[in-house]
C-alpha cells in the first residue's frame, strides 16, 4: 500500500508544479468575478446566473484537469524511460496503475476543493446563504464521477498512441455521455432495427455520468439528494472505476514498455 501512496504522491506534486490547474482556476475566477460584476437592472440580489456560469466552468476545468493529468501519466513514464527503474524497485504493474489512479484522483479532488471553496465564497457573499450540505453532495458526486473519467483515461492511454489523442477521445466520450447518454433510450425508441438494439446496448453499457451532475440542484436551490442515493451512485461509480482499472491492468500487463 505504501508503494501506491508513494506513486500517488508524485502525481500530486506534479499537479501543483504544472501550470494547468492555476491557469484554469484563474480563468474560472476571472470569468465568474467579471460576470458577477455586471449590473442587471440595478438589482444586486440576482445571483443564479453567476452560480450557473461558475458551476459550468468548474465542471469543464475539473474534467480537463482529470483527463489531461491521467492521459499523460503512463506515456510520460514510458517516453522518459523512468518506468524501467520504477518497475525494478520492485513495483508491480498493478501497483503502478493504482498509484497513478489514486494520484490523479486525489490531485483532482484537491483542485475540486479549491474550486468549490471559491464558488461558496463568491455566491455566499452575494446571497448571504451557505447551503454546505448540497455543496458537499455536489463535490462528492463530481469527485466520484471523476474517478470513472480518470480510470477511463488511463485505459485509453495504454491503447492510443499519444496523450493528445487520448485527451481528445476521452473528452469527446465524456462530453457525449454527459450530454446524450441519458437520452439514448429515447433516441433508440425512434429507430428501426438494428439501430435500436445498438443504441440500447450502448445505453446499458456506458457509465451514466450524468447522474452525478447535480448542478441544477445547486443553482436553483432545490433540496438535497437522498443520502442513500448518493451512496448507491458512489457504488456505481466504484464499479465502473474498478472495471476500467482492471482492463487497464490487463492491457498494461501485456504491453511492451519500449517506445
Amino acid at each position, binding site marked *: 500500500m505504501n508503494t501506491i501512496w508513494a506513486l500517488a504522491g508524485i502525481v500530486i506534486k506534479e499537479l501543483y508544479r504544472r501550470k494547468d490547474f492555476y491557469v484554469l482556476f484563474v480563468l474560472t475566477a476571472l470569468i465568474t468575478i467579471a460576470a458577477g460584476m455586471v449590473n442587471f437592472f440595478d438589482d444586486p440580489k440576482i445571483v*443564479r446566473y453567476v452560480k450557473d456560469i461558475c458551476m459550468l466552468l468548474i465542471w469543464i476545468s475539473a474534467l480537463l484537469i482529470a483527463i489531461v493529468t491521467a492521459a499523460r501519466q503512463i506515456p510520460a513514464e514510458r517516453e522518459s524511460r523512468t518506468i524501467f527503474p520504477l518497475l525494478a524497485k520492485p513495483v508491480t504493474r498493478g501497483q503502478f496503475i493504482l498509484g497513478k489512479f489514486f494520484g490523479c484522483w486525489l490531485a483532482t479532488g484537491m483542485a475540486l476543493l479549491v474550486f468549490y471553496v471559491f464558488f461558496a465564497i463568491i455566491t455566499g457573499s452575494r446571497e448571504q446563504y451557505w447551503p454546505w450540505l448540497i455543496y458537499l453532495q455536489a463535490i462528492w458526486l463530481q469527485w466520484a464521477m471523476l474517478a470513472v473519467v480518470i480510470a477511463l483515461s488511463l485505459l485509453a492511454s495504454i491503447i492510443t498512441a499519444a496523450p493528445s489523442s487520448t485527451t481528445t477521445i476521452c473528452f469527446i466520450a465524456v462530453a457525449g455521455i454527459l450530454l*446524450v447518454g441519458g437520452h439514448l433510450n*429515447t*433516441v433508440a425508441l425512434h429507430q428501426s432495427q438494428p439501430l435500436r438494439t445498438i443504441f440500447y446496448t450502448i445505453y*446499458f453499457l456506458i457509465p*451514466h455520468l450524468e447522474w452525478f451532475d447535480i448542478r441544477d*440542484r445547486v443553482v*436553483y436551490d432545490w433540496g438535497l*439528494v*437522498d443520502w442513500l442515493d448518493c451512496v448507491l451512485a458512489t457504488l456505481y461509480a466504484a464499479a465502473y472505476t474498478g472495471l476500467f482499472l482492471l482492463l487497464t491492468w490487463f492491457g498494461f500487463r501485456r504491453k511492451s514498455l519500449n517506445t
Partner: protein
Amino acid sequence: MKASPYLVLALVLTVCFTLATGIEPRAATWSNRAKSDNVFSLLFGDGRRLFANQFFTMADVYFHSGYYPSVFDLREEGQKEIVEESHGHTDSPEDEIKEDFLGKPKDWIDRFGRRFRITKHTHLGGGNEREMLPWLRLAADLDPQKIETYTVGAYFMRQHLNRPREAEAFLREGLRHNPNSYEILFELGRLYDENDHDTDRARDVWRLALYNWSKDPEAVKDNKLAFEEITVHLARLEREAGNWQQAINWFQAAQKVSPDPNALQQRIDEIKKKMAAQTNAPAAVLH
C-alpha cells in the same frame, strides 16, 4: 547596395500610413458592423440573433427552476410559458399534464437518474423572478428587434418585482428599436393603467397601439389576439372611467375577433343595465 534597416522601417511605415488614409474611408462603407454601439453586433454581426433566442429560452428555463425539456424530450411546441404568463395565462391541471414531458420512467437507469434531476414543474415566485432578468437583458442586447424580450421583462418587473420605472425604461428602450411595435405599446399602456393608474396616458398609448396594429398587414391577418387584448383593455378602461358608450363600442369591436364573444356580450349587457338604471333614476325621482 545595402539599405539601412531604419530606412526600410520608415519606408514601410510611410507606405502603411499612405494606404490607411486611402483605404479607411472606403472600408467604413463596407460594413455597418464597425459603426455599431453594441458590443455584440460588433463581435457577432447578425449571427447574434441566434444566441438571443437561446438566452430567451434560458429565461424560460430559469422560470421553471431547471425543469425543462431537452431536445430529446417530446413536448408540443408552443408559446414559452413566460410569454403566456405575461399575457395573463395561468396553468390549468390539463396544462400541467401536458407539460409533464418526462412521463413514466422507461427503465431502471432512467428511474434512478431522476433522483438526481429536477422532476417537479414549478414557476418562480416570491421575488425570485429577478433571476430571469440577466438572460432577458442579454437577449435584448443580442437581438434588439425581438419584441417579446421587452414585453416579458417589463411584465415581470412591474407585476412581480414592483419595479415599474425599470420596466418602463426597458419598454422605452424596446420602443426605440421597434418604433411601430403595438405589443410594446400595449405593455406600456398596461404599466400606465395598472401601476401608475394614469388613465389618460394608458388610453393614448393603447390607441396608438391599435393604430400601429391596423397598419401592420401581417398582424391584421395573423395576430387577432393582440387586437382583442388592446380593445378589451380599452373597454375596461372606459368602463372604469364611466364612459359607458365608448366601453360598449370597444367590447363590440373585440367581439368580432374574440374566441368567446358571449363572455364579452355579458359585459356589454351589464353596462347597458347600468346605463338604463342611471337614466331611469332621475325619472323615478320626478314621479
